[in-house]
């Protein structure tokens, strides 16, 4: 496969590819979650640049705005809440199956790479002026794909509702539970010290025992 691209095109691609892959590897091998998030942001920026080389201008911007800008911020927030470093980064339970899975993944990558290598490399058509611009994609989204577009908003609504419901604080319920437990313990202690009480069940004696504790 002879690349017909210019020298600069190639350099751009390889640099960006290196950034992307490097960033991804870096992300996946960090222990500190903050570092990982930051390098993922960097990876996304490199990806956005890659999209731009594919004439996907609108999506490059969206990638930065939404992915790097919003989703990663979300991650940061959560990292701030759950700020813990871990001791050993690799999961140990069932390690065998996981390693096997990675190997399977590697195999698949090689198979696909070979398929591509064997296939014919068609010439890359030059995209039109309006390819990948906001106006033309907006056109597509609002006409042919209006229904999926509107469904996304429904999806986001579901996600919001789900997120709120799942992460609702259960403090009140927890407090109630703890209070109930405390009451139970008090009763048990009362009965343990004064076994006669459980037979008599007299109100004032019970109150007296409660007063001691």
């Amino acid at each position: 496969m002879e690349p017909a691209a210019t020298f600069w095109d190639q350099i751009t691609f390889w640099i960006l590819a290196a950034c992307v892959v490097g960033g991804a590897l870096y992300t996946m091998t960090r222990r500190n979650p903050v570092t990982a998030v930051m390098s993922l942001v960097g990876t996304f920026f490199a990806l956005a640049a890659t999209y731009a080389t594919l004439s996907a201008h609108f999506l490059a911007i969206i990638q930065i705005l939404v992915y790097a800008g919003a989703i990663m911020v979300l991650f940061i927030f959560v990292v701030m809440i759950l700020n813990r470093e871990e001791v050993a980064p690799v999961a140990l339970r069932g390690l065998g199956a996981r390693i096997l899975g990675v190997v399977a993944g590697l195999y698949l990558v090689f198979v696909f790479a070979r398929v591509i290598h064997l296939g014919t490399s068609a010439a890359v058509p030059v995209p039109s002026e309006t390819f990948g611009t906001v106006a033309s994609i907006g056109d597509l989204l609002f006409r042919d794909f209006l229904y999926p577009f509107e469904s996304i908003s429904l999806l986001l609504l579901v996600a919001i509702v789900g997120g709120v419901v799942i992460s609702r604080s259960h403090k009140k319920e927890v407090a109630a539970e703890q209070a109930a437990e405390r009451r139970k313990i008090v009763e048990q202690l009362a009965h343990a010290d004064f076994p006669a009480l459980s037979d008599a069940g007299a109100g004032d004696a019970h109150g007296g025992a409660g007063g001691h504790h």
Partner: protein
Amino acid sequence: MPATPTAAREGTTDMPTSYYLILSFVLFLIGTSGVLLRRNALIVLMGIELQLNAGNLALLAFSRQLGDQKGHAFAFVIIALAAAEAAVGLAILVALFRSRQTINLDEASLMKR
């Protein structure tokens, strides 16, 4: 390297699609490995994001090859979907943390038989 002047217009590249596809596969592999091997739930979620982005990259490469913008629309939807999924996933994570005080997936084994 052949010194053919590029026929591409300014702002486009002539890089063959196969290169982008291989990049996409590699990225997907890295993401999958992260998901499979890491213990920290946050890192796992980030790996999932990498996988989604790999898919996006492949979509956009083919989109350019075929000159059809449907791929862009599809990628757009995927990004929105990734946002929703990240939100819900992180919410679950926060809830998990609140009850178990850990995000170590090894210890999230209550459901295990």
